[in-house]
């Protein structure tokens, strides 16, 4: 067990009159890789949106722990969260059409010190300082043309994940990270996730419909249904749980 990274208390989100998310008390980040599963409409994406500030909260508290400090993140903006180490990958493909794959990673690795209107001569310095890191990823994932644009949906999705990884987040939310990726790349992403959580202390929360992935990578799984997190446990406990089988996987044990 690790220290918790996120603590949600009485978090409620309503759309119209319908309560979409209603979480009493839950902590994330106590295991390296955690999974969040549940049937369609359970509120998983809304929950991720609440944590990453894409969706505003109606009520409740989301606390983030960094170096033993407790912070309420409900008033923080998206970019502040990212700088604090709370980052999410996108479910829907997102890209910068003017930037090549390498540019995208350079953007991700540049910090506010590099990005000043009066400082336009620091490109070489940035490239030199980040070359190793960028090459490592480019080699690992075998991009066809790193100085061109990400062309296929798979490449864009992969680039999205790498952009987040190079930020070295403390807590990474991954919304369907492997949907649309070829198998060999999926395996590489999984291996990378495992490495990051073990060696760099990153905590990852995955939302996924691909249950095989959840069972193989997660150390801890949350089951969500009708806006509430009903059960949490190890993958084995969850897949054998009666409620989960009834509400999600149907009677046919899979």
């Amino acid at each position, binding site marked *: 067990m690790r220290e918790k990274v996120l603590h949600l208390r009485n978090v409620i989100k309503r759309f119209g009159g319908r309560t979409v998310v209603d979480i009493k008390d839950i902590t994330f980040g106590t295991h390296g890789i955690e999974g969040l599963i549940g049937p369609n409409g359970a509120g998983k994406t809304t929950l991720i949106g609440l944590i*990453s500030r894409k969706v505003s909260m109606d009520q409740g508290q989301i606390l983030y722990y960094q170096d033993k400090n407790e912070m309420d993140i409900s008033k923080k*903006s*998206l*970019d*502040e969260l*990212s*700088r604090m180490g709370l*980052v*999410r990958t*996108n479910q829907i493909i*997102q*890209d*910068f*059409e*003017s*930037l090549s794959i390498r*540019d995208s990673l*350079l*953007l*991700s690795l*540049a*910090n*506010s010190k*590099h*990005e*000043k*209107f009066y*400082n*336009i*001569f*620091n*490109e070489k310095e*940035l490239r030199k300082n980040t070359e190793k890191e960028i090459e490592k990823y480019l080699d690992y994932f075998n991009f066809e043309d790193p100085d061109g*644009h*990400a*062309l*296929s949906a798979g490449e*864009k999705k992969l680039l999205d994940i790498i*952009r*987040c990884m190079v*930020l070295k987040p403390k807590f990474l939310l991954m919304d369907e990270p492997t949907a649309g990726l070829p198998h060999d790349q999926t395996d590489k992403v999984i291996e990378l996730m495992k490495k990051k959580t073990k060696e760099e202390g990153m905590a990852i929360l995955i939302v996924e419909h691909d249950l095989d992935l959840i069972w193989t990578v997660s150390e801890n799984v949350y089951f969500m249904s009708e806006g509430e997190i009903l059960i949490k446990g190890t993958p084995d406990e969850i897949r054998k749980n009666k409620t989960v089988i009834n509400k999600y996987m149907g009677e046919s044990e899979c």
Partner: protein
Amino acid sequence: MEQLFSGYMIYSLSFLLIFIALATILHLQFSIGGIVNFGIVGFWGLGMYAFALLNLKLNIPFVPAVLLASALTGIVSMALGRIILNLDDQAVLVGTLAFATIIEYLATTEKWLTNGVMGFGTIKFPFDLGANTLFVYFLVVLVFLILLMFYVSKIKTSPYGRLLLSIKDNEILSQSLGKPTFRHKIIFFTVTCSLIGFFGAMTAPLYNYIFPRMIGPGITFTIWIALMLGGRKKLLGGFIGILATIGLFDYVIETVVPIPTQYAEMVPNVKFALYGLTLMLVLMFRPLGILGDKKREVKG
């Protein structure tokens, strides 16, 4: 051909340099920063009027007056930016257009300060070198234009330029990578608008006498047309575009081509009609302008 080399040529060329600078700043704002500034003339006019007032009414010397006028344009654009820059492109377009109109109206209505439609002067050059004054001033403007072009060319391959492109392409994604995009946009807008104000101040001595009709929306439209024509994504797009519009009509045709007097007054009207026609043809056959690629880039 004699008049080509006369003082009038230097005078016209100085104006061309100013407009090339404005088109280059617009290229920076629009094609790199993604800000649709339809009020260039407002910032330019503000810089020009502020400079003239400081210089003539408060007797502030040339250089500090230019710097103060640029700073004032920057401060005003920062205030405007705070209001409009977190809105969408159309709102920014309308906001900046409205801003330019307000400046034009203020220059007209605040008679106690600006002498209304009559205008005021005389604005002198910062130095007096006899017959060479204008030529030396032209060289000064040229140096600033070259510095500007160098800056813009450098920005394109710098981390700052990459940041601006990322905001233009996908602001939310840029935010999610930890970039405070709204703050960056305001700073960028402030800096680039104060540059426009700077070139506005530098224009004042060339006009000598300034009045509100000079800062009408026609200038904004001409610069936009020039940039679209030349190639909005290229550093030299503004340069080529200004030569092909203002350069061709206001200088070559008006000074060099012998037009019979009875047709002379038609030129300005025909000019705008031809601008429009050229722009349509360019957008149809070369959407990215003379310097741009033939077709739009195919998105991956």
